[in-house]
């Protein structure tokens, strides 16, 4: 997975709760079979008017928020479907960090897997973060994963929690599948213990156990 160590940039504020993945990227854009080029469809229904022009009222269409690489938002960000197209679109648009009061589980994992850092801060801390800036943009934030803090331009610091395992994976940018494949002996052992009379203990639709290199149906 792509790595993440630290990041400096300005943050756009999307002061909304329960932003769901249907808003982040509507379903008509889920039909592609690659991972690239979703940024132009990010927040599509909020961003564009029916005639295709940008809607000037939308938070991310403000002159000052353009170029922001951090998104600051409310509760339950990314709820709804499991579509990884949502973080693909956020990343392609330019967001590297998302700071929210809370995230939906699957979305949180999907961010990490794509090298976007999802950070949970309390409502109070998020208010503090944006307190003395104009509402729409917070300039000069610094985010450090190793030390687990977000710092404001004036030096004020907000600490955040992060799972130690995923932190290590992100800091190193390791390929998750390669790391797991190092557990081959353990996986094999588990499988062997679950084969009873040539059958998978938990049942499968093929009747018999098909070993890992035996792709024949």
């Amino acid at each position, binding site marked *: 997975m792509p790595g993440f160590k630290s990041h400096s940039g300005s943050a756009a504020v999307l002061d909304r709760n329960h932003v769901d993945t249907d808003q982040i990227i*509507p379903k008509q854009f889920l*039909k592609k079979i690659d991972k690239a080029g979703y940024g132009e469809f990010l927040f599509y229904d909020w961003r564009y008017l029916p005639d295709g022009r940008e809607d000037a009222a939308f938070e991310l269409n403000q002159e000052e928020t353009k170029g922001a690489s951090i998104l600051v938002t409310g509760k339950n960000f990314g709820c*709804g479907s499991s579509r990884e197209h949502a973080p693909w679109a956020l990343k392609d648009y330019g967001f590297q960090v998302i700071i929210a009061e809370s995230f939906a*589980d699957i979305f949180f994992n999907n961010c990490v897997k794509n090298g976007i850092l999802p950070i949970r801060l309390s409502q109070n801390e998020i208010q503090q973060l944006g307190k003395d800036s104009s509402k729409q943009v917070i300039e000069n934030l610094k985010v450090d994963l190793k030390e687990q803090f977000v710092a404001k331009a004036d030096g004020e610091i907000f600490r955040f929690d992060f*799972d130690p395992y995923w932190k290590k994976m992100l800091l190193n940018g390791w390929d998750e599948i390669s790391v797991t494949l190092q557990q081959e002996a353990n*996986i094999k052992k588990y499988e062997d213990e679950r084969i009873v009379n040539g059958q*998978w203990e*938990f049942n499968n*639709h093929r009747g018999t156990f098909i070993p890992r290199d035996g792709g024949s149906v």
Partner: protein
Amino acid sequence: MSKTIIDKLWDSHVVVKEENKPDLLYIDLHLIHEVTSPQAFAGLREKDRTVRRPDLCFATMDHNIPTVDRFNIKDETSRLQVETLEKNCEEFGIQLEGLNSEQQGIVHVIGPELGLTLPGKTIVCGDSHTSTHGAFGALAFGIGTSEVEHVLATQTLWQNKPKQMNVRIEGELGFGVTAKDVILWFIAKYGTNVGTGYIIEFSGSTVRSFSMEERMTLCNMSIEAGAKASVISPDDISYEYIAGKRFAPKNQDFKQKCESWSKLASEPEATFDHTIEINASEIEPMVTWGTTPSMCLPVSGHIPAENPSSSSEEKQSLHNALTYMGFKGNERIDEISVQHVFIGSCTNSRLSDLIEASKVVEGSKVHPDVHAIVVPGSQSVKREAEKLGLHKIFLDAGFQWRESGCSMCLGMNDDIVPEGERCASTSNRNFAGRQGKGARTHLVSPIMAAAAALKGKFTDVRSLLSDQQLEVNRYAGV
């Protein structure tokens, strides 16, 4: 220490357990569909990797499938996605029940009806409503595409064990109240965040009395309550459903399996991080009026009005929802007229849903201003329904009777609700734009959707039916 069913499912699948690391969990069943898998297969190919256990993967296509003239996918990108799945399954040796299969259907409908979904398994799918399969006492949850690739390559996932919540539902449901109303009521009362970070076990006498299809409806929408997954301990009702299913264990093997499945139930002394108790008799037929599933009220209710004393955040979200849905506030729910009715989706497209809705519809006509469709969840639901003559009841009333797929639940095919129009829908999400840009979705049970189709507006289904008629035999499954 006493264990919950969640502990037992979890512990029996841990491959690696080390400090400061998530557990490495083994996955017994990986369900695959066309939308969230192409990039995962492409990733395997890029790195020259294989699928570790093709025998534990099972694929179908559902999201993009037309429900009229199903073999003719006009949208080129949809067609490419479907063809890509065919190619990937062929190349990696994965069983696919595709468009021309008699078993094709919504992934969460066919897993159970084929006997792939069984108690004791870990089940994943690149789809959030994988929670549905928990109804059988499986640990089932949705994953993203990177995780799909990881499971294909390793048959495992690194997972931190979530907290556990017991939602105990006791008592008898009132007349005309369904499993769908229970889960809508739960989300309305406790919010879309209540389950975040938890796996929920649904327990209690109400749940025990539910058929498998009702249990699936309940677990299906636990994701709308924010939960990672939900489970129900298996019992005789589960085994009766599973018996004889195509891929389920047979004969002596089945008997032995039932015995071991019976040991999965939470032990009486086991503790949960959180418990919620619900009195089933309080629940009424529910209708969502806004743009999250928690914006939901009994059909007898009034839509909330903007309240000057609420916080600015609440004001804003209420204002946005009312504007999107075209309400001023204070409207009576049972005076809202609808232009579309959709009976379908992985929440409510199974045979018992269609049977119940048909009882409401039988002998009546769809309101002239309403466009109403029934989309069975799978080809076998469709066949079984036709054997019972349900299609005739719906067609005679003026419904359209379609082919199986996700359809208007998310409108990736041609089944879209036009901008500004209202739909009474038996699906699970009422997010802005979900059923089409500007479409206004109201989530309801199948019998409430049927009632709305006949009256052209939301109607308390209880007023349409005498006790006698509504007594639908709880159906043990296809």
